């Protein structure tokens, strides 16, 4: 089952994140996982509906699931690294069981812990994350073959009932920006962006 992954193009996280953000026209919520994943979300241009994780590695998808359950009429997109997802593979089964229609997950897979010195993950040479997602019950899971295919899969996931998971192979480049590390402001602005709060 890993053939599909091996044939996919190696892309760039910032480029893909920018392509995704450019498509968001309906105040979709975006959860950026720890490290480079949210750094590139930040660098792609802050939106009020972006949430940036400064810790709790692996909880990108669970946090996005919580937002999706709370706001079933809003699309929620979660961006997560392969190393992060490996910490919470069980969360894929929770998401499959609850089957939120409004959740799209993107796994940025470079096979390394880039930010800690580019050590390979245990999965790098042996596992196929999209196959794991399918086996976890997430039927709408696919590798993006190239940038055009990524955009097509994103369009489809935004238009059709989910949950959907998109795997992308990416290069070993670090994130382009650095998120301002202000957790209270990040959370408060996110809640304003989701219309949960009103400004003072």
């Amino acid at each position, binding site marked *: 089952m890993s053939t599909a992954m091996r044939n996919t193009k190696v892309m760039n996280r910032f480029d893909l994140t920018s392509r995704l953000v450019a498509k968001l026209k309906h105040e979709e919520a975006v959860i950026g996982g720890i490290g480079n994943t949210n750094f590139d979300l930040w660098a792609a241009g802050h939106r009020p509906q972006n949430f940036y994780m400064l*810790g709790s590695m692996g909880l990108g998808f669970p946090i996005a699931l919580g937002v999706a359950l709370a706001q079933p009429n*809003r699309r929620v997109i979660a961006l997560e690294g392969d190393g992060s997802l490996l910490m919470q593979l069980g969360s894929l089964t929770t998401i499959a*069981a609850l*089957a*939120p229609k409004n959740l799209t997950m993107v796994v940025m897979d470079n096979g390394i812990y880039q930010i800690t010195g580019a050590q390979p993950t245990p999965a790098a040479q042996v596992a196929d994350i999209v196959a794991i997602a399918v086996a976890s019950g997430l039927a709408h899971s696919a590798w993006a073959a190239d940038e055009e295919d990524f955009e097509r899969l994103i369009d489809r996931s935004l238009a059709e009932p989910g949950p959907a998971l998109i795997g992308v192979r990416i290069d070993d480049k670090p994130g382009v920006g650095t998120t301002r590390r202000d957790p209270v402001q990040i959370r408060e602005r996110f*809640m304003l962006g989701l219309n*949960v709060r009103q400004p003072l």
Partner: protein
Amino acid sequence: MAVAQEKTSPQMLEEKTLQERTPQENTWHGIVLDTLKHNDVRIIPYVPDRVLTTLIKSLHADPFFTTFATAREEEAVGIVSGAWMGGVRGAVLMQTSGFATLANVLASLAIPYQIPLIMIVSERGTLGEFNYGQSLVCRTMRPVLDSLAMEHHTITRLDELEFIADRSIKQAVTTQAPVALILSPLLTGGKVFDK
């Protein structure tokens, strides 16, 4: 999963005193369920525990709640954190040993982002514990809570349960700080020399 909409408003639910409750409602698990409902706490992910079984069954049976199992307690904390930011309150149910997996997520998500995480912990490891590992991991729970200066209460008496749980949930929400409600075997009966 239309959790936010189409549900009963908590204001529509009657507050009942201990004396007015039916025998079923006047149990620790009945009071916990009522208190969650009165405080509009709707999303209940859990990692199961034998002592919590009746509470979990009642939560599943009540459509006011969205109740489901998660693979790890950390995951459940992530879910209720996201739900709260999306405008819906939640609470996580777990056992003592599950709490021991949470130090990182408390210190990197719930506390610094000021999220009113409500944790209900069934206490194993004391008052008749038969598993050495449970008795050891139990000793780490309060030192972790205290080292992070987190609000926590150990509930031992039925007549104090509603007051402590209700006030603690309200305080968590208004001060945007996590709280742990530890259900002692003195309250629940605990789990004794079992298979």
